[in-house]
């Protein structure tokens, strides 16, 4: 029998992922550990899965946080990141949102040219990208197209997304060590 997978929920707030260890900066949530996102008290290669749900848009430095995620995750661990698409009103609804991101915003962690190692040494493999759109656009089939054809997603990001607006982006990454 394989042991229970170890899951870290970074910025768990009040909706900690079942069975995970939650970290946050506020004691008012469900956190097990209060700490800085870039200096967590965990040993290298501890977790099988790390989740960052609606939190990377708020951090001071996305590079530093993902470097720390990379450090505490095991080789081939799953990393799930969810954030508003920058064309959704929700990207602007919080005074804590520092970053406005698109479905290609994490590309340099997965398919970066060698010189980018200088900025982002942490390496991930992109397993899946899932975009949600507003209800009308979903009903008209655009969400299906965006998620099933990478070329269409690119076309949507370049030409359509200020009209056919996005809602959330979810990445599933795999840690490369």
């Amino acid at each position: 029998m394989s042991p229970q997978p170890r899951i870290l929920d970074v910025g768990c707030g009040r909706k900690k992922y079942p069975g995970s260890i939650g970290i946050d900066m506020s004691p008012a949530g469900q956190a097990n550990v209060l700490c800085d996102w870039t200096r967590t008290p965990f040993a290298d290669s501890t977790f099988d899965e790390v989740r960052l749900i609606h939190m990377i848009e708020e951090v001071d430095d996305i590079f530093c946080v993902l470097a720390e995620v990379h450090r505490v995750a095991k080789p081939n661990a799953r990393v799930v990141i969810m954030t508003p698409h920058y064309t959704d009103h929700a990207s602007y609804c919080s005074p804590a949102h520092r970053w406005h991101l698109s479905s290609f915003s994490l590309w340099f962690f997965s398919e970066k040219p060698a010189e980018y190692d200088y900025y982002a040494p942490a390496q991930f493999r992109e397993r899946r990208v899932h975009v949600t759109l507003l209800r009308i656009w979903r009903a008209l089939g655009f969400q299906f197209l965006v998620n099933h054809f990478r070329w269409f997603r690119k076309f949507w990001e370049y030409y359509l997304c200020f009209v056919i607006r996005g809602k959330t982006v979810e990445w599933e990454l795999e840690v490369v060590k």
Partner: protein
Amino acid sequence: MPRILDVGCGPTKYPGSIGLDMNPSTAADVLCHLDRGGLPFRDNSFDHLRAEHIIEHVADIIATMEEFHRVTKPGGTIFIATPHYTDYSSFRDPTHRWHLNTYSFLYFYPGGMHGRDMWYTKVRMREVKLNLRLLNLWRTLGFEFLVNRSRFFRQFWEHYLSFVIRGKLMEFTFEVIK
């Protein structure tokens, strides 16, 4: 006489107010940098605080609002003017750190986070008034009237229309709750 603080007053201080700015060549009465320590006033010092085109520049909106809330009396009002994120002015100034919409301050309203109070801050205030301004063309066509008149239309506009029928300026008046 009500005590008024004009934060980031620039050269045109609000009449009858104490002006605060970080730049000595303004009409400021008090020189202070908002990102380096708090405001140099006691708790509950002011009946009214104004911050016009300031909040989009600060390093930390939540910490700044905590200071605004601290120095304003209970029941006092805070006026904030800032660009809507769909206006070109939100992006034309390289010192603008934040891009905001008409829901950006829900964070501080009682029950503002889907019926619950936000637990990352103790600031509580109520929205007394919101005046949203659109570009001339859209105002002429009646859209400014609609977004200010109907909450439902404003929501639809924020979700679906605001990248085409673009916003310009948001003027919020908040009442401080303590």
